[in-house]
């Protein structure tokens, strides 16, 4: 998920509105805007994914399941860092 202002960059690759995602929450449905995107890592490995942001609301930076299913990610709380994890023999 992205903050709303960051979504503007991705608006040239939006999905049609009728295909936008909707979440069921405790306070009612949450309609998202969805756009196609690439993730490019240091090794120039391109991963195709989508980015979403609430249609109404500010949004925030969150890694979703689609990204977590594509990349090995380490959330290092004490260091306040998000890292990509590689197998030791790949270094």
């Amino acid at each position: 998920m992205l903050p709303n202002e960051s979504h503007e960059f991705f608006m040239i690759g939006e999905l049609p509105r009728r295909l936008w995602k909707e979440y069921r929450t405790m306070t009612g449905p949450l309609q998202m805007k969805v756009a196609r995107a690439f993730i490019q890592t240091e090794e120039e490995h391109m991963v195709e994914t989508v980015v979403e942001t609430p249609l109404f609301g500010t949004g925030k930076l969150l890694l979703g399941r689609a990204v977590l299913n594509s990349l090995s990610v380490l959330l290092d709380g004490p260091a306040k860092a998000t890292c990509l994890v590689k197998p030791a023999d790949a270094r």
Partner: protein
Amino acid sequence: MNYLTLVMKKIDQRTLRDLKAEAARRGLTLGEAFKEAVNLWLSKRQDTLVLTEADQNNAFYESNEAELERQYKGRYVLIAGARLVGAYDDLHAAGEAMRALSPRPRHAILTKIGKDAREFGEWLGGSLERSHQ
């Protein structure tokens, strides 16, 4: 941030009085209220422009959805300026076509026909955090 002094002419008394009253009610200085009002005006104008372009692209997609499904199933289609720019076998080719658009549109639709579908998810209280207010 640099702060400048701005002198404005020909503001009617009633508008200025209302602005001062509303600023005082919200606990803002006149400068803060002016900045908030300008930001709101600028973002509203931007949204209107984007919505118009997005509306046109979505209207094109919706009125041609069946035809796109019939002709381009499994391919990426790029819609900009309320027209079909092209259909591509892979996302890189679609990305190249998108970058080649001139002038660069503010909005375009890029969808894989027959693969992209409306999804529903469940979000029952994840990512809660403490408010800093």
